[in-house]
C-alpha cells in the first residue's frame, strides 16, 4: 500500500513543477478552422497553415508563449473556447457585438477590407485600388474619395451578397444612385460578374482573392479604394475567454509589437498579396 502512495506522490511531482513553470512560459492552445483559405487551412500532413497561423506564431514568440494549433469546426468553435478546450481562437473571426457578448477579443490583427471588383472590359472610369477609406474617420480626403467612387459608379449595376456588410454599405452610401442586385451566394455573383450582367461587385478582399486566382477571375480586377471601418466593424481579432485577462494583455502587447516592426504586414503580403492589416 505504501508503495502505491509513493508512486502516486512521485507522479504528482512533474505536474506541480509544470504548474510553477506556467507563470513564466504558459502553454496556449489556439483553435483554428482549417477550412477558410488563405486565412487558415490544413496542409497534406495535417498541419494548420495560413495567415492566422503565421500571425499566431509571431504573436506567441513575441509574448514568450508556447503555442500550438488545433483545428476545430467553425460551428461550436466559440462554445469549445468557453468550456476550456483551448485558450484562443484565430480563425479569421471578425469582431462583432453579438460575439462580444459571449467571448472577449484581442485588438484586431487584420481589417475586414471590402473592395469593389469590376470586369476588365468594363467602361467604368478607372480608379486605382491602392487608396483606402476608413469609414470611421470622417476626413475630407475620405469624403472626396467616396464622392469620386460614387460618381464613377452612378447608374451602374452592383452585385452584393445578401445580409452582408457589403450590402449595408451599398444601401447606405450609394442608395438610389446605383442599381443593387442581391445574391444568395457569392459564387452566383461571380458568375454574373464574368457574364457581364452586373458592372461591379462588392465583397471582402479575402472572398475576392480566391476568385481572382481562378481562370474566370482573370477577367475582373479590383477597383477603387479599400473600404474598412465604420459599418464594416473593427476587424479580425483573436477570440479569448472573458476571464482570461492575462492572455488578452499579453496578446495585445505582442500584436502592437509585430504590427510596429512590420512583421504583421509582411505576413499579410505573404498570404494575401496585399496589406490587409494597416489602418
Amino acid at each position: 500500500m505504501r508503495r502505491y502512495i509513493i508512486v502516486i506522490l512521485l507522479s504528482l511531482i512533474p505536474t506541480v513543477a509544470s504548474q510553477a513553470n506556467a507563470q513564466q512560459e504558459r502553454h496556449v492552445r489556439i483553435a483554428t478552422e482549417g477550412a477558410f483559405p488563405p486565412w487558415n487551412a490544413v496542409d497534406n500532413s495535417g498541419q494548420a497553415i495560413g495567415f492566422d497561423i503565421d500571425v499566431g506564431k509571431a504573436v506567441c514568440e513575441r509574448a514568450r508563449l508556447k503555442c500550438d494549433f488545433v483545428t476545430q469546426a467553425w460551428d461550436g468553435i466559440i462554445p469549445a473556447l468557453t468550456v476550456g478546450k483551448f485558450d484562443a481562437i484565430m480563425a479569421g473571426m471578425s469582431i462583432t457585438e453579438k460575439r462580444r457578448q459571449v467571448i472577449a477579443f484581442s485588438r484586431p490583427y487584420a481589417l475586414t477590407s471590402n473592395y469593389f471588383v469590376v470586369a476588365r472590359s468594363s467602361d467604368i472610369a478607372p480608379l486605382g485600388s491602392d487608396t483606402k477609406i476608413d469609414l470611421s474617420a470622417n476626413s475630407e480626403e475620405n469624403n472626396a474619395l467616396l464622392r469620386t467612387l460614387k460618381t464613377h459608379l452612378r447608374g451602374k449595376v452592383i452585385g452584393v451578397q445578401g445580409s452582408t456588410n457589403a450590402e449595408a454599405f451599398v444601401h447606405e452610401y450609394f442608395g438610389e444612385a446605383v442599381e443593387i442586385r442581391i445574391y444568395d451566394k457569392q459564387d452566383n455573383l461571380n458568375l454574373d460578374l464574368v457574364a457581364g450582367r452586373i458592372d461591379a461587385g462588392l465583397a471582402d478582399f479575402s472572398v475576392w482573392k480566391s476568385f481572382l486566382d481562378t481562370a474566370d477571375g482573370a477577367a475582373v480586377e479590383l477597383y477603387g479604394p479599400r473600404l474598412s471601418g465604420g459599418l464594416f466593424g473593427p476587424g479580425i481579432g483573436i477570440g479569448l475567454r472573458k476571464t482570461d485577462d492575462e492572455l488578452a494583455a499579453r496578446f495585445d502587447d505582442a500584436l502592437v509589437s509585430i504590427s510596429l516592426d512590420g512583421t504583421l504586414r509582411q505576413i499579410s503580403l505573404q498570404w494575401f498579396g496585399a496589406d490587409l492589416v494597416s489602418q
Partner: protein
Amino acid sequence: MNLSLILDVLPLLADSMVLTAKLTIASIILGAFIALPLSLMRASLTAFLSFPVLAYTFVFRGTPLLIQLFLVYYGASQMDWIRSSAAWFILREPFWCALIAFSLNHAAYTTEILRGGIRAVPFGDVEAAKALGMSYALRTRRVVLPAAIRLALPAYANEVVLMLKASSLASTITLMELTGTARKIVAQTFSPYEVFISAAVIYLGITLVISYAFAHLERHLAKHQQRNAQTGMFWFAEMIATLRPRLRGSVSR
C-alpha cells in the same frame, strides 16, 4: 409575435408585390399565347404534330421550375456565343430570363390542360359541325375551343394560382419580388414569423382576386347551361374549389 410589425412591413412588401404581379401576369399572357396553338397540335391525331409538343410538355412538366430558371439564367450566361449574340440583350436581364422560364413552364401545363378540354368536347358536336360543312378552322373557332375552354377553366384557374406562387422563385436570380423582399426584411429584423405572415397575407389576397375572377368567368361562360340562377355564395364555393390541390397523379412542382 408582434402584431404591429406584421402591419408595419405590409407597405414595404406592397412595393415588391408589383414585381410579383408583373411577372405573374406577363407569364400568364405569354403562356396562353404559346399554349393555344400547342394544345391544338397536341390534341391532333397526327403524330407528326402532337409528338413534338408532347416532348416539350414532358420536359417542362417533368423538371423543377427552379432548374429551368437556373438553366436559362446561369446556363445561358456560360456560353460565349450566346453572350456575343443579339439574344444576350434579352438574356442579360434577370426579368426576361424569369419571364422566359415561367411562361414556357406555365405554357406546358396550360397546353396539357387545354388539350384535355379539347379532347373532352363531345364528339357529336364536332360531327354536327362537320355535317354543316364547317372547315377545320371555323369549327375549331366556333365549336371546339369555346367548349374546350369552358371545360378546362377550373383546372386553368388552379394553374394560374400555382403560377403566382411559383413566381417566388424569381428571388433566386436577384429579382426582389414579394418572397425575396420578405427574406431580406427577415435578415434585417430577425423576425421571420411576422414578416412571412405578412407576405402570406398578400399572396392570399392576390389568390382571392384571381379565384374570384375565375369563378365569375366560369359562371359567365356556363350561363346557357343554367336553368335556375344560383343564389347566395356560389362564387365562394367555386373559389374554394380552385384552391384544391392538383389532382392526384398529375405532375406538380
